[in-house]
Each structure stands twice: as structure tokens, then as C-alpha cells.
């Protein structure tokens, strides 16, 4: 059982600068050639101020979080079970977004081979004015290392 005291532990905000090249490479990797991710003029003609980032782009953001530290256990393996995003607005090239990570919940869930430890990790992205841009939520099946792995 993971330590319930981990709930609420958070990492300090880390700046992520959204670069056009990073958006392009991310969209290419998915195989998504929608011109709003590549072509500034097209993006503007589509009603956006500039090039847009794909919906899962926040997956590429960095945060200062070390899950081992946040959860307070050595981690043997992690299984990504669920992922969710809430968006206040689209993310655009040129955005400067501060991302922080927080343990939103830990609990046990019955699994096939006994109880599974679940951790819910929430990332929050805010702009320089402090306005919320997105929230991302990962549900992870955590296998803690026996000792200080």
C-alpha cells in the first residue's frame, strides 16, 4: 500500500517554452499532418492566432517532479492505465507554460493478482499570468520496489 501521506505532494512549477519545431516533430511522430500544426498562415485562416499544439502535446512537457520522491517509495514498475486532459484553451507556439505536478490520490484497487497500488498524478499548466491552461491527469499502477531500489 502506498503512503497516503503522499497525497498533495507537489513539485514546483517548471517553465516550458512551446516551440514550433517541437510541435511539428510531435505531430509528425503521431503521423498527424493537419496543417494547423505546421503552417502559420493556415492556422490563422482557421481562426487561431498561430500554430496550434496537438491535444496530447502536454505529454512532452517537463516538470521537476520525481515520482519516487513524490510517492515516497522506490518504484519497480509503472503501468499507465488512464490519462485525461482538461483544456482551458488551446496551446500555441510561443506559449510559456509553467507545469507543476502533484499527487492527487493514492489508493488500492482489486486486480487479478491481488490488490494494485494506484497513484493519480495531476499536472497543471499555467501561463505567465497564472491563468490555467490545462490539467492533465495520469492514473498509474505502481509497483513499489521492495527495498530502496
Amino acid at each position, binding site marked *: 500500500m502506498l503512503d497516503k501521506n503522499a497525497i498533495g505532494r507537489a513539485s514546483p512549477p517548471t517553465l516550458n517554452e512551446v516551440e514550433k519545431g*517541437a510541435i511539428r*516533430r*510531435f505531430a*509528425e*511522430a*503521431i*503521423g*498527424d499532418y*493537419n496543417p*494547423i500544426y505546421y503552417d502559420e498562415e*493556415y492556422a490563422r*485562416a*482557421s*481562426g487561431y492566432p498561430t500554430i496550434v499544439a*496537438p*491535444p*496530447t502535446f502536454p*505529454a*512532452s*512537457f*517537463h*516538470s521537476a*517532479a*520525481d*515520482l*519516487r520522491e513524490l510517492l515516497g517509495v522506490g*518504484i*519497480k*514498475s*509503472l*503501468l*499507465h*492505465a*488512464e*490519462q*485525461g*486532459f*482538461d*483544456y*482551458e*484553451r*488551446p496551446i500555441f507556439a510561443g506559449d510559456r507554460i509553467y507545469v507543476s505536478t502533484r499527487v*492527487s490520490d493514492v489508493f488500492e*484497487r*482489486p*486486480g*487479478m*493478482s491481488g490488490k*494494485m497500488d494506484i497513484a*493519480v498524478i*495531476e499536472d497543471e499548466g499555467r501561463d505567465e499570468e497564472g491563468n*490555467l491552461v490545462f*490539467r492533465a*491527469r495520469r*492514473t*498509474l*499502477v505502481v*509497483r513499489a520496489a521492495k527495498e530502496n531500489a
Partner: protein
Amino acid sequence: MPARKLYFESIRVGDELPALAKAPVDRVQLSRYAGASGDYNPVHVDEIYAKSVGMPSVYAPGMLVMGMLGQLISDWARGGQLRRYNVRFIKMVWPGDTVVCKGRVSDRHGSGGRYFVEIDLWAENQKGELVMKGGSQIQLFYSLEDENRQRSGQSPIVVEVPRESLVVPAPASSAEAASSAPAPAAPERDRDEDDEEDEESDEPRSGASSKKTAPREKPAAKTASLPAAKKARK
């Protein structure tokens, strides 16, 4: 020129999104995604490592498949604003697998000049097996006229449209999928504050699904010495 936009007035509950069949996943794509996302977990890019931890080969990160399903949404909802996008990872996607992304409108509603559609989403592999399922909420202009008004600073067109949740047939590959279809969204407003609430309503579904996700648990458990902290970072 940009493609034609999608407007609320033309959408009906039960409408299907045109299926999106992606090119087969290959190892080059896995490398590209690792580079683009910054997630270099070796189970996705290092064949020798993946085998050493008991996997038949490298496999696609769930987030890559979520990105593909995200393409289905953005391709369909041109001119719309994505408000929410959730998925559950069900089955692994291997090199050579073809992911087919599908979706269906499960609800539509509008109030105070803001209009939303809810869609059920799922992805299948080439055998028709469910690999991922989820849901999304998209905000749209009511009509072209509404968009023109708002873009010129006028007030939006206001039509009260109550939710019209409908029981739709299950995706062929999973009867369970529809019965546990994404719950209708929590109230759209104050989403930032009420986020917790929203996810709480998720609980029964998650519990019910442990059966489905369980098969993945086994192979994943073998990724014993995977550098968790690296992946965790994300």
C-alpha cells in the same frame, strides 16, 4: 484553405466520426515519438532491452495511441475547441499493428450561448480488438452566423439545448465499452475548480474496468527494472 468547420447545429447524437485508419506502427515511429515526447523509456525503443524484460518486442507508448485518437477528434471537430479528452489504455499496440480510431456523438447540449458535444471514442487494432477507449467534450459555435457574430464582438446566439443522452449500441468489439461509456460531463463551468468532482464520478467505471486492464498487468509487471523514474518524470 482551411477545411469546412463543424457547427453545433449540424450535429446529432449518434453521429459517427469518420473512422481514421493510421499507418501501421513501426519502430521508426516509436523512436520519433520518444524523441518528440522526451519519453525514452527503453521498453518502447530498445528491442534488446524489451526482450530482456520478457516482452516479445518493443511496444507503443499509450500516449502515442492517445495522440492518434486525438487526431480523429481534431480532424472532425474543425473550428471546435477541445475541452476534455480522457482515455483508458486497454491493450498494447505492437510494431506492425494498425490502429483504427473511431468515435460517436453521445450527447449535445448548450446553455447561455455556449455549446458542447460529447463524444465516445475508441481505438481498435487490425484484429478489431479494443486497445483504448475514452471520451471527449468539444465546444463549438452554434452556427456560422454565431461564429461571425462572436468574432465581430457581438453577443452569441442563445438557444437552450438540454442534454439528450441516448443509449447507443456498443462498439462491436466490446459490449462493455458502451455500458460504461464516459459519464456525461460535470457542469462545464468552473471546470478548473471542479475537476476533482468530475473524476470522482469516474470511479465506478474504473473499478469495473480493472478486468479489462488486468491482462496488461502481467506483461507490464515484467518490465521490472524499467527506469521508472524516467517515465515517472512525465
